[in-house]
């Protein structure tokens, strides 16, 4: 058989290459420069790389490209508005993570030079998650996303909590990857291909084998996005990992999981929707209930935010369940993730400012009297808590509004009811932080440096804009959602 070179358009994957190349460049610098200088320059370099990738990504908005097309098969990589929009989310996540890490890492004695390197590698995997048009590439991207995160979770070794966090994350992540890959194998067995268009064409005739594949891939994604009943690792991992890593993975890994989940489930498995939608809806309901109810009793802000992130995975899953029967499902999920990015990273930025030493100052009681110590930061934290609860005018409210609307449109009324009730429950633990900040007196210094304050200011601003002017942004997510599915169905 003659080998034909696949068509490759490097420009399409340039943002990913820039981010991964930035990580490789940091490795290279460490070979030739003194470690201290590398540490000094790493954040700047990461920001530059992310900015370049961001510009390139913005330039690709509105275009649809495919690349890495083997002869006689579908392309491995697809770049449409869906992927571009998600890449913007990932790059912003990286940007804010750098801003909140710059002063935190030296302060708690974790200024290891591999931090930014691993973060960039993980980001490149996340970006590939949204661009993958082949199950093999989805798996590859998932591993590129996960493996650096396993190491990052254990960054503050030899602290036992951090090592426990890395170990748990690694083992459960490895198990879930294995289940996921088994799902891919079964899907391949049922449809004869791993390319998403071919899977779409063959999956409805796949019988029980295809259903088993779908179920196992649902489990794999469920682990990545921390949906119940696959959420057990989340609180321990989030608590033990350094707070900046927790912030990064609570947004990046979750959105990465949903990026591939939306592409695979809504488009490739769309014709099996009547089978998997009830399953996803039930998982969403369980996730909402467990996340919101267990968060109430958490005394530690990181554990509380971990359960809160489980709950938010539930809201996004609602949109996923709605996306087969409602045209607004995917765009609602995208909007929700966009709003969640700013709100959650902002809340973590303030948690980082309040963390005195590694693992100290992370209890809810440490937030007592924050309003007296720093009125502006307390105000910002209160605003983020309102946004996470879903009270207008915040991005969180707009996101919940779109998600609930899509769920109702899709006819999942019971799920929308569960979502609304659990939102009310979530008010208890979010607003308790506000209550503690304003109604008590407390001691403790805050670590506010310009970079962190910039991150807080930008996230507050973005949450406010998404809360006041959601329409314009929703139109953008709508363009992103539609195109993503049309291309695949046609290709």
């Amino acid at each position, binding site marked *: 058989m*003659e*080998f034909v070179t696949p068509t490759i358009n490097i420009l399409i994957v340039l943002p990913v290459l820039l981010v991964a190349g930035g990580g490789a460049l940091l490795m*290279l610098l*460490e*070979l030739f420069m003194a470690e201290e200088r590398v540490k000094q320059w790493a954040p700047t370099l990461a920001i530059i790389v992310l900015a370049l990738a961001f510009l390139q990504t913005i330039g690709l908005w509105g275009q649809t490209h495919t690349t890495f097309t083997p002869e006689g098969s579908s392309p491995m990589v697809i770049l449409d508005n869906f992927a571009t929009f998600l890449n913007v989310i990932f790059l912003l996540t990286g940007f804010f993570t750098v801003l909140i890490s710059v002063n935190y890492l030296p302060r708690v004695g974790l200024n290891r030079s591999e931090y930014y390197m691993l973060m960039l590698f993980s980001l490149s995997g996340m970006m590939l998650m949204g661009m993958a048009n082949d199950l093999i590439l989805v798996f590859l991207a998932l591993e590129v996303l996960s493996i650096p995160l396993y190491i990052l979770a254990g960054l503050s070794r030899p602290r036992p909590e951090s090592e426990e966090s890395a170990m748990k994350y690694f083992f459960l992540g490895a198990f879930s990857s294995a289940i996921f890959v088994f799902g891919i194998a079964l899907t391949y*067995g049922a449809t004869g291909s791993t390319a998403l268009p071919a899977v779409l064409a063959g999956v409805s005739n*796949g*019988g029980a*084998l295809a259903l088993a594949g779908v179920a196992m891939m649902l489990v794999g994604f469920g682990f990545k996005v921390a949906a119940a009943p696959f959420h057990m690792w989340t609180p321990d991992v989030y608590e033990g990992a350094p707070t900046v890593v927790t912030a990064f993975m609570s947004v990046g890994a979750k959105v990465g999981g949903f990026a591939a989940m939306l592409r695979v489930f809504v488009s490739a498995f769309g014709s099996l929707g009547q089978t998997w939608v009830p399953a996803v809806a039930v998982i969403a309901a369980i996730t909402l209930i467990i996340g919101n109810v267990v968060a109430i009793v958490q005394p530690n802000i990181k554990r509380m935010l971990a359960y809160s992130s489980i709950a938010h995975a539930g809201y996004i899953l609602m949109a996923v369940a709605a996306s087969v029967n409602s045209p607004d499902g995917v765009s609602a999920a995208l909007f929700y993730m966009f709003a969640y990015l700013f709100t959650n990273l902002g809340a973590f930025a303030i948690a980082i400012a309040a963390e005195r030493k590694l693992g100290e100052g992370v209890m809810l009681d440490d937030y007592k009297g924050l309003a007296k110590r720093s009125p502006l930061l307390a105000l910002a934290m209160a605003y983020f808590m309102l946004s996470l609860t879903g009270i207008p005018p915040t991005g969180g409210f707009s996101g919940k509004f779109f998600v609930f609307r899509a769920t109702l449109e899709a006819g999942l009324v019971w799920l929308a009811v569960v979502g609304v009730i659990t939102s009310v429950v979530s008010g208890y633990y979010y607003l308790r932080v506000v209550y503690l900040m304003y109604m008590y007196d407390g001691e403790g210094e805050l670590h506010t440096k310009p970079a962190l304050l910039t991150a807080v200011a930008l996230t507050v601003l973005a949450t406010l804009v998404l809360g006041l002017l959601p329409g314009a942004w929703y139109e953008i997510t709508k363009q992103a959602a539609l195109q993503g599915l049309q291309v695949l169905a046609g290709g």
Partner: protein
Amino acid sequence: MDQILLDYLPIAVLIGIGIFFAVLLPSLSVSLGPKPPKDRNLAPYESGMVAIGEAQRRLPVKFYRIAVLFILFDVDIILLVPWAVAFRKLGVYGLVAMLIFMVMFILGDAWVWKKGVLEWE
């Protein structure tokens, strides 16, 4: 029954046999084997050696690091050999692709070396 499912029947049979034996043999040994006397058999070493220390003790990590590096080189070889076999067919494209891979790989090696992973003492 789908043809495609029938094709997987041997695998299902194999799994069934695997489970059958995994259950059968331990249950045979439990039901037919001699019942152990108490304390001595529960000690870590039945030979009578005294156990020292705890099970969760610190291990020298250098063996593990070498093992991980070994796996990396192993995978490297797995990719290199088929490429070498199909070298002429793959042509310039294969060469460039393999060069990119090798550059990344060697960069990783150099980094590992610089970090002192290869030093034994």
